[in-house]
């Protein structure tokens, strides 16, 4: 079974943490999922198939003409941003 530490490492990269028992549930889930994924792997000649990333080929897709218009303004940002300074969104110190 996949180790809790590994799962926690994944979680941290996604910028959150979970409770211990939640990791246990997840570990069990990983077990089931990995087994299910094996079902996928058992299908023949998969490597000869192009992965499908859109439900069907979309035709006549056109690029956007380069015409500029701003659709929101600083007042809109203020609706949800908690803190602003000099019309910029204020956040705690950025660390590497």
């Amino acid at each position, binding site marked *: 079974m996949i180790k809790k530490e590994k799962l926690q490492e*994944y979680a941290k990269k996604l910028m959150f943490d979970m409770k211990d028992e939640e990791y246990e549930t997840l570990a069990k889930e990983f077990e089931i999922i990995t087994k299910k994924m094996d079902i996928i792997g058992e299908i023949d000649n998969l490597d000869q198939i192009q992965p499908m990333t859109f439900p069907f080929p979309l035709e006549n897709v056109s690029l956007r003409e380069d015409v500029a218009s701003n659709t929101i303004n600083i007042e809109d940002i203020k609706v*949800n941003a908690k803190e602003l300074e000099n019309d910029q969104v204020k956040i705690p110190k950025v660390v590497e």
Partner: protein
Amino acid sequence: MQYLNLTIDDIRKALDNKEVTSDELFNEAIKKANYYQKDYNSFVTILDNYEKVESNSILNGVCYALKDNISTKKILTTASSNILKDYVPVYDATVYKKLKESGAVLVGKTVMDELAMGGSGTTGHTGIVRNPWDITRQIGGSSAGSAAAVALGIVPFAIGSDTGDSIRKPASYSGVVGFKPTYGRISRYGLFPFASSLDHLGCFTRCVKDAAYVIDVIKGHDDKDMTSLNDDNKEYSKSLDNDIKGRKLFYIKEALECDDNNSELKEIINNFKQTIEKCRSIGFEVDEISIDNKLLEALYPTYMVISCAEATSNNANLTGISFGPRPLEKNVNDLIFKARTTGFSELIKRRFILGSYILQKENQEKLFLNACRVRRLIVDTINKLFDKYDGYIMPSMSSIAVKFDEKENQVSNKNFAIEHLLLIANFGGMPSISFPCGIVNNMPISINMTSGAKNDELLLNMAYKVEEVLGYKGINRGDDNV
């Protein structure tokens, strides 16, 4: 006299004949919404006013509800997640804009499974949604509140989204019509994404005709959504009565091979066999076809892999930086960490970790890309059948609405169930509709019909005819004495 449990045609007539005003309708809807809220919890937000609009649309003055993952300017939109519990959008989703322009009257935003990731209606941050037919049962999700609002007769239609079965499952569990048209038929601009390549918008109504009316209003090309289709310049509601004689349907033999001990499933399958006979009686040709079990068993894992992978990335904007919760922290990483740790429920986090694992460099080929390959295999298999057939017909679900059971939200051990077939329409962007076909153990059951991509008009036409012959149109468990 109540109007909101009527069909759109009848409501239109009442409005046009001045039997009722749109103000009165709105008040009726609000009253009902509030009345049912405590028991069923359909809404995150119930509105207290609306703006009148000049329009010739059939929906002008007709009340409706929107799932709470559809962006509505100045109206709280939470996706039923703590991380968005205070989020007020600054722009309108295209689907909302179209409904506004038609004069349809928004009553409220409906509860859903958190971020649309779940199928139970139990994971929203404001509590569980209950089934109008039996309060001890789930309504299914993720568009739980939208289904409940229609089933309860609060509104004649509601908008939902469907990534795996999120419209059709709750529709089936609550005895209403659930329809998702072809991928790209309705613009996704403003729909909070779960898995972009599988996400569809659609509607809940109490009859097929109403679904056609609603889609006629909200479909159409949108310059803001590059995946949106060109206009087909059709009015689906006008061709519902087209002759279906000689139309060919198929059903999948393997899906019906159930274990004999399950009497409920047996009843559902018996009902299905009768349904097939009724279809034949009005001129459909219905064939039994066979599909490789391996493909059927691969449906659910394929869905899990693709949807979790896309979801991880799609929700990476939820950090608490320019919107969302802003816990007080010394540095920005701690802020993001805390916002996400407290903002997402456990289920969501598990899905995200799974999704991110799937996309990792060392796993992507084996997990993500292989799932995308199986997706193509499945879609190609079905599309090949659509060369010969106009659609397929299957029971929507293998059971009636399930009782509340916490295990529901964990990955199930079963390799295949009938409801997994609903995923096919998401994989292939096919129009797919579920509607009531009977009652089992005092609960509604439902049939699903799916056609080839872009054949929305034909699918609605066929569904309308089947609905007619089945005789379960507009079954309603709503308490009519509010």
